[in-house]
């Protein structure tokens, strides 16, 4: 039961963030800043939860939306650098990761007024229980967003256009698609989904968060999930379940008799999802098919 609880928790996080990465990369922008976007979204959502003076249900809705909005704003920084200024997307993303942790620590310290970048909040309104299984509101949110993501990417004109910009932006431009606009949409979608994923990671599990640790590499794991999921929504969801099982082991190793007997240090379990992702990446690398134009700034003059 505990395994199911934690696996679900992490599945939603990894899936949302990887879906965010998918939108960005499908439009042609490598988004390595997902980790930072998660931190910003988590921070904004937690602050909203702490300070909004409304009924619990309203606060839940608003904090999720505020997290999403904050993430979109932050992702705009990546969009501006990599779309308009044609910067190196990996370096820009790295800068935003570093900046996000630093900003979150500064803000968290100022908010709680001490030298420790920790925030305390209440997460009761986000949790509910069905048949003895602890769930959070992020699970239905995640499922809905997964369906919407699939629908937009494959069943709408917007999705088709977005995908074309990640494959061959010159061709897309030649038939009148605004490549810059599509890429902005991709980056903004990744900001929205990534930051809600960040909140989904921080909020349901604990009631206090130390922002010094950022989001402990979940954003980077989500990148592996996205690659393993081959930039496709439902495959990403499956990949997220796979990785979450490994991640959940760290939380529950003590309570499973067989694993507890091994007496491995907890760090081994923390390490596992990262090791698993390397094995998976090595095995799938030959078949892997990334969007062709990702990482290459689009220059109209090069058409």
């Amino acid at each position, binding site marked *: 039961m505990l395994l199911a609880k934690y696996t679900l928790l992490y599945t939603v996080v990894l899936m949302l963030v990887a879906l965010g990465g998918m939108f960005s990369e499908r439009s042609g922008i490598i988004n390595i800043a997902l980790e930072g976007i998660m931190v910003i979204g988590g921070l904004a959502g937690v602050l909203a939860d702490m300070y909004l003076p409304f009924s619990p249900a309203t606060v839940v809705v608003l904090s999720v939306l505020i997290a999403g909005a904050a993430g979109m704003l932050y992702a705009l920084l990546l969009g501006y*650098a990599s779309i308009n200024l044609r910067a190196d997307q*990996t370096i820009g993303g790295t800068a935003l990761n570093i*900046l996000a*942790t630093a900003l979150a620590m500064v803000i968290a310290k100022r908010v709680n007024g001490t030298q420790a970048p920790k925030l305390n909040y209440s997460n009761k309104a986000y949790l509910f229980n069905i048949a003895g299984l602890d769930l959070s509101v992020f699970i239905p949110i995640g499922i809905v967003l997964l369906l919407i993501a699939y629908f937009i990417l494959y069943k709408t004109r917007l999705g088709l256009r977005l995908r074309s910009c990640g494959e061959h932006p010159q061709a897309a431009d030649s038939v009148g698609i605004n490549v810059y606009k599509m890429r902005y949409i991709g980056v903004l979608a990744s900001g929205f989904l990534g930051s809600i994923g960040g909140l989904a990671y921080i909020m349901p599990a604990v009631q206090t968060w130390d922002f010094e640790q950022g989001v402990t590499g979940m954003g980077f794991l989500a990148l592996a999930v996205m690659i393993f999921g081959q930039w496709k929504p439902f495959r990403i969801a499956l990949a997220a379940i796979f990785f979450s099982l490994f991640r959940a082991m760290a939380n529950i190793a003590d309570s499973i008799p067989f694993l507890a007997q091994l*007496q491995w240090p907890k*760090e081994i379990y923390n390490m596992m999802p990262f*090791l698993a992702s390397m094995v998976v*990446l090595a095995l799938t690398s030959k078949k892997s098919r990334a969007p062709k134009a990702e990482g290459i700034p689009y220059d109209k003059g090069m058409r």
Partner: protein
Amino acid sequence: MKNNRFRASLITIASALLCVLVGLVIGFLALVLLGYISLKGGSAPFTLGDVLSTAYNSGFKQVLLGGVYRLPRGLRNEIALAAPLIMTGLSVAFAFKTGLFNIGAAGQYAVGAFGALYCALIWNLPWYLCLLGAAVFGAVWGAIPGFFKAFFNINEVITAIMFNWIGLYGVNTLMYGGGSSPMYNLKTTKTWPVSAKSPASLIPDLKELGATYFQRPGTIAIFVAVVIAVILWVVLNKTTFGYELKACGYSKSAAKYAGINEKRNIILAMAISGALAGIGAGLYYLSGTAEWQPLVSTALPGIGFDGISVALLASSNPLGVIFSALFIAHISTGGGFMSANIFPPEIADVISGVIIYLCAFMMLFKRRIGGLFTRKENEGGKN
């Protein structure tokens, strides 16, 4: 022709200074905002002038003055921090020169710290052998992403990120060892101080040079780092080996066509890059002032990521790295001297993050201007 090259490097330096300037301005604005919030929290009325003077006097002045703000201790700390920063900066810069982005310097640094401390605390080796141990551990950790890149064609950035975390958790596990590791001191919850277990492993002090001014002079770490930077510059610019590595960076297929073993070079370049980061950790943890804390090290070492800012700011020039590392050490040390209840020291990291962000596209503008000069040079028939 020499004149052109001179102008190109002037443009490089100018654009780096511009990044720094904008970064500092944004840092100042953040301080003004924080100062405003803190004054508003008090009951006394205040003016804009008060806000500005708070921001300047208890925050920005410290950042600008850096270690000089509190002599002599501050300057010593600044130099002690600059040495490992030069090394991680060189690590990232060297990889950039060979066309690779080594985001894994943080993990290689952590693994290098383990190597250094293991050689020191368990084997009680002299300091130079401990540094070598750190280099070997870092090199292995750096070679792994290179291996995945060369043989599986997996982007080195992804692999390095994964191995950052694997390295951090692995190092924590080994140093803690369930509390029974011989490296771990249960009382202080840190690794044993090197000075207590193996004084010979400490990097020698600068007794003759600095003793009259500093009460406790720093170590020779900074000189080790500078010497390595110079060696690296020579290797990259004056040797066939360096030329081959750079050729792989410019165009993998062209290098292969020219008969360069590009797989071997990728792995080698990453291994050297990792070794540099490892030595950086050695310089830091063998200085006698720092121990590893396996239970609370849940975040990757920031010095590894600061290496990225250092390298970008220096346009990956090994000699430039010396100066940009000093600058980053300068503002970080200064950040620690701000009034911490108003201005969290992480403001320095904010400034550093802004600088990397600016560098991401600044370098592009520069390359475009610089491109004009190099093209002329090529037409001149040389290079």
